[in-house]
């Protein structure tokens, strides 16, 4: 008995092509009444011999006719799921508790192989009753034309435990129930939103009063909390979050002559559903909500090409177009903290992208080839900006500089590759440039932070073409048109010592130039980076052993610019009113400072002149003096990792040992180490390694087993500085409350004088992922007189994410209060130093077991039973803060971490004809 992989169908010998359409009709009809699903497939196997999904059956001694004609197959059956689980059904559609039908078909037909006709057709469909259904119809005359119509649905479940109080879910306007009471519990914080009011513990809410006494809430406060809870908690209701993608596609391939191909394709995809998105109402209090966000997107993609084949020459001219259309332009939502206030979010803008590509390859000789590619693209986005009057949050009091972005991005690619084989040598030389040239025009955009009405008067108000009335907290920004041009060149030379032993040496150079069109200052964190990579590989086969070792070292260096962030703030290049003699940028250049200002504590004498204006008390660049509320100042030594200087070591090894005819053992390992050697703050090091052991055992044609284990370990090591602002404050609460906790300073005054350089505020992150994955596949054939086949698959995944934190932060003693509260007892810390604590480990343990059995009834028919058990047991601290009563400023969602035990069992009948 031979087995092989198809689409989950049994195979047989009856030729009943005429019944195909009837069977298809019946099946489609069946599928409209009940969900259908493909019988689970093997996803773990390494050895092709073990990759056979259950139920694929071909007779032992097929005739020539059976081997040469086209087979059609149908699979029908029934199955059931033991429990509903959104996560289990995340992509497969089996998220509901129910019985479902199994229905798949694959019908083929057309001229026989020995005909002079090349007409062929094929019609396939699976999972027809689920939101994961798909179908493909192919037909054509091979060598002349081929046509494909395909339809595919994809489900992506996110959460079924999400709750929201917002009404209008699924629309672009979210409101709150008329009964909504702002969940502020005054004794906790009289002004800011505090969802503590939704705390289910009625007696909670004890606070230190102004006299420094821990007090339980009054009856009136308890009544207020109860009223809030009674009004708001019932408003929270479940909303399932899930997206569906429906995609239809047409592909045509014309072959007008033997030397010309013309492939054309068009697809339309509609993505619809709900997901969550964060929406902030108040930037000061960080009042925000995880909103139910409607996705209603259409994406059309089309391509066409002309491929010309002239013996040694291949030429291709191709077009690709992508048209994204968002059917919802913006979203409005009511502020849970301020009745009557509405905030707005601009959704992803509709856009287009067109690309032309020319490819040519020329065979210079039997062993030498040249390939060149050129590509140009044009992306546009010109969706109207959101109407400033749509929301009443006051974010855009000065209107808009223009109605839409007029976004324009050109992309370009030029690449060439030359390959040559000569004797024992194989040479590859390649060069490439690619470009993203953003030509979007700049504009100055004036806006207020969320819930931050204008205050004071900006030193740029009425100057440099700006309107009057700008506040000190008005953001004066221009957009940046991020552009990048990268060049790559390299070569490799491989020498073959023998047919089975090879050594390769290679070198690559990679340069990236980043800039912003029309920008007044270099906008890129690293205007230019250069990377040199040296690599080598050795591989050898000898007898039963095959070994491979690869190693690469690369060195990237760039000119990091800590003041690049100023590119977004054009007023940094203008002299502010109020006494400054120069612009903020000029001041930084003349002093050699970054936006962080001097790396120093309080100056010994009060600062004067520009220093007092731009970096008062030696603090960071004063925001109002360059028109921003966005504190982006960079600490010297901080570097963003994706452009920072880096030494990279990559290694990979693979060893395959065919121990005996029956046993193959394969071990492989990968290592990658990124050392950001000149980075003092930011990501300093990333190391990753993984190792796999894979053993397959083929006892006989009838028994094959495969076992694997993979261990994966990633570490990200980053450092930071939670620096404060230098000040002359000498106590916390009232005079005398001066004792400071922590190892760095003993008094509040000493700490405040050096707040910006306090070493106790340095911290490190050590983020580790450790993941074990083990799997087993087993197949036993020819049982019960050759009629029974057993197969099984099991996978266990154990994921651990550790976020270790070292450092600490200062927290005021809640008893250190201003008068009339009593002073703290002598020696009592007015400010505590709180050591950091590691986050709880994020755990994801998943077990999957899929045994199955196939019983052969006849050459045409077989019966297949399967069972599928899957368990997920995760823990994740992310969900703690999402619960009602969380004391945070964002609206709770009461989401819980998904976990499940799901059993699926079923029986399917396979029929081939």
């Amino acid at each position: 008995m031979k087995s092989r992989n198809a689409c989950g169908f049994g195979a047989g010998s009856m030729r009943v092509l005429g019944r195909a359409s009837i069977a298809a009709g019946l099946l489609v009809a069946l599928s409209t009444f009940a969900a259908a699903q493909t019988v689970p497939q093997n996803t773990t196997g390494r050895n092709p011999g073990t990759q056979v999904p259950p139920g694929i059956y071909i007779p032992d001694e097929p005739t020539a006719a059976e081997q040469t004609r086209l087979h059609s197959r149908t699979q029908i059956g029934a199955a059931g799921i033991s429990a509903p689980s959104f996560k289990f059904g995340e992509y497969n559609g089996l998220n509901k508790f129910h019985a479902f039908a199994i229905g798949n078909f694959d019908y083929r037909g057309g001229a026989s192989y020995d005909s002079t006709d090349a007409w062929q057709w094929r019609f396939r469909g699976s999972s027809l009753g689920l939101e994961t259904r798909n179908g493909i119809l192919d037909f054509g005359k091979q060598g002349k034309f081929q046509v494909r119509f395909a339809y595919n649905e994809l489900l992506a479940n996110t959460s079924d435990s999400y709750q929201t109080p917002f009404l209008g879910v699924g629309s672009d306007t979210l409101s709150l129930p008329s009964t909504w009471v702002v969940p502020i519990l005054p004794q906790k914080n009289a002004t800011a939103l505090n969802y503590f009011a939704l705390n289910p513990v009625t007696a909670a809410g004890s606070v230190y009063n102004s006299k420094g006494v821990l007090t339980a809430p009054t009856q009136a406060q308890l009544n207020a909390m109860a009223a809030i809870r009674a009004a708001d908690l019932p408003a929270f209701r479940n909303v399932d979050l899930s997206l569906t993608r429906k995609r239809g596609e047409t592909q045509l391939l014309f072959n007008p002559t033997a030397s010309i191909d013309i492939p054309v394709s068009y697809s339309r995809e509609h993505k619809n559903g709900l997901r969550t998105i964060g929406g902030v109402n108040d930037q000061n209090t960080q009042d925000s909500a995880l909103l139910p966000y409607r996705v209603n997107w259409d994406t059309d993609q089309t391509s066409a090409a002309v491929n010309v084949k002239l013996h040694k020459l291949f030429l291709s001219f191709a077009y690709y177009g992508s048209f994204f259309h968002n059917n919802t332009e913006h979203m409005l939502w009511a502020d849970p903290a301020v009745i009557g206030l509405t905030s707005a979010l601009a959704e992803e803008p509709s856009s287009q992208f067109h690309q032309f590509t020319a490819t040519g390859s020329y065979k210079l000789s039997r062993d030498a080839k040249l390939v060149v590619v050129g590509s140009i693209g044009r992306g546009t986005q010109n969706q109207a900006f959101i109407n400033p009057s749509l929301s009443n949050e006051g974010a855009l009091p000065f209107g808009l500089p223009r109605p839409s972005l007029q976004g324009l991005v050109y992309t370009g690619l030029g690449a060439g590759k030359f390959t040559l084989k000569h004797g024992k040598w194989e040479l590859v030389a390649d060069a490439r440039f690619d470009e993203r040239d953003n030509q979007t025009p700049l504009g100055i955009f004036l806006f207020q932070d969320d819930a931050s009405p204008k205050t004071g008067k900006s030193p740029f108000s009425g100057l440099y073409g700006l309107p009057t009335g700008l506040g000190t907290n008005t953001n004066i920004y221009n957009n940046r048109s991020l552009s990048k041009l990268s060049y790559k060149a390299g070569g490799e030379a491989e020498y073959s010592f023998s047919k089975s032993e090879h050594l390769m040496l290679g070198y690559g150079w990679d340069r990236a130039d980043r800039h912003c069109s029309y920008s007044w200052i270099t906008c890129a964190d690293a205007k230019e980076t250069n990377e040199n990579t040296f690599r080598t590989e050795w591989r050898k086969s000898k007898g039963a052993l095959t070994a491979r070792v690869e190693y690469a070292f690369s060195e990237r260096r760039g000119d990091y610019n800590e003041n690049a962030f100023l590119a977004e703030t054009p007023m940094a290049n203008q002299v502010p009113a109020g006494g400054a003699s120069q612009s903020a940028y000029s001041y930084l250049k003349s002093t050699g400072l970054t936006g962080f200002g001097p790396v120093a504590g309080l100056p010994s004498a009060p600062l004067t002149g520009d220093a007092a204006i731009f970096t008062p008390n030696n603090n960071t660049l004063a925001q109002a003096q360059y028109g921003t509320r966005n504190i982006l100042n960079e600490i010297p030594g901080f570097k963003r990792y994706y452009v920072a200087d880096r030494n990279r070591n990559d290694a990979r090894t693979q060893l395959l040992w065919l121990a005996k005819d029956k046993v193959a053992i394969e071990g492989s390992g990968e290592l990658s180490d990124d050392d950001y050697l000149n980075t003092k703050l930011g990501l300093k090091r990333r190391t990753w390694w993984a190792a796999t052991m894979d053993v397959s055992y083929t006892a006989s044609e009838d028994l094959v087993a495969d076992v694997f284990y993979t261990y994966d370990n990633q570490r990200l090591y980053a450092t930071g500085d939670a620096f404060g602002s230098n000040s002359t404050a000498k106590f916390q609460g009232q005079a005398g409350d001066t004792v400071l906790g922590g190892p760095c300073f003993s008094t509040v005054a000493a700490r405040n004088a050096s707040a910006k350089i306090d070493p106790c505020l340095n911290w490190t992150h050590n983020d580790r992922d450790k993941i074990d994955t083990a799997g087993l596949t087993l197949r036993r054939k020819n049982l019960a007189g050759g009629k029974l086949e057993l197969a099984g698959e099991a996978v266990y995944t154990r994921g651990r994410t550790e976020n270790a934190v070292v450092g600490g932060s200062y927290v005021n003693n809640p008893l250190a209060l201003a008068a009339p509260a009593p002073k703290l007892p002598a020696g009592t810390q007015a400010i505590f130093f709180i050591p950091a604590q590691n986050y709880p480990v994020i755990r994801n343990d998943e077990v999957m077991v899929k045994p199955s059995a196939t019983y052969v009834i006849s050459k045409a028919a077989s019966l297949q039973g399967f069972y599928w058990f899957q368990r997920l047991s995760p823990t994740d601290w992310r969900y703690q803060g999402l619960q009602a009563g969380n004391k945070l400023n964002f609206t709770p969602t009461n989401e819980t971490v998904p976990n499940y035990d799901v059993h699926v069992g079923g029986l399917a009948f396979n029929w081939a004809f």
Partner: protein
Amino acid sequence: MRRSIRVIVFIILGLVLGSMGSRTAKAEINRSLDGDKKCTLCHNEASGHVLSIYQTKHGVKGDARTPGCQGCHGESVKHQENPSDSPEIVFGAKSKQLSSTEARTSACLSCHESSVHARTYWSGSTHEKQGLTCTDCHEMHNPEQKVLNKLTQPEVCFGCHQNERAQFHRFSRHPVLEGKVTCSDCHNPHGSTGPRLMVKNTVTETCYTCHAEKRGPFLWEHAPVVEDCTNCHSPHGSNVTPLLKTRAPMLCQECHTSDHAKGLYSAANLPGGPFVTGNGTIPLGAQSPTDQANGRACLQCHSQIHGSNHPGGAKYNR
């Protein structure tokens, strides 16, 4: 941009001119069934599934391009005269007479390098340099090739890419095991113009084929997003949803250390986070818990992290 256009025009002209070389005559092979009979007389239905090639595109005799047995395995005159001699080109991986990598690849490229489904970028590509041949992934006699079926293609790729096999069993992943997204949706195993065998010229262009909403251009662009999606995402799988390298706020703090991104956030800032102070464990009011350490952390407010088109969205929060 003009530079790009000039280079492209130059390349095309060069190639067209270069194509004016002479054609090399190639020995004609009898691709008909009569030609195949030289082989199928012996390699018949009793020889495994040799004949099932006639169910595949390579066996459609109505298409004059189909190769015939000798088109792939060579004329093999010696083998015909003496069956104990091996055919000129042997593809069977377990055969002791397995032909060299070059010979096996050349047999396929004789048509597929520049004629049928041209694999223009194969020469010098990652897989070619690793010593792979077409038949390491393709089973030419199998009408249901695993590598051409979305549901089963990963099994073929996982044969070598074993770590990726494990990654696709993680908590957050693309729907590859369900056959909804497959390896070749993102990677072209035959070589490409993009890095890491991406099907498009860049990583971002490849991602935009499914995630076009993130393409923009946006009014406020986020530099690492424009550069490369994999700066933050692990596309094959992650322990942290959605396919993130690590959890926010730690992820964001790798690049941001100002404003509230500079702060130290730890388990002490979770609800019920136990502060141990000099006076014992006491509640610390507004200091515990902290918004930036909880829920979606930074993304709770800076939710338009892939770019914002709101005129006031410079901080990716609108």
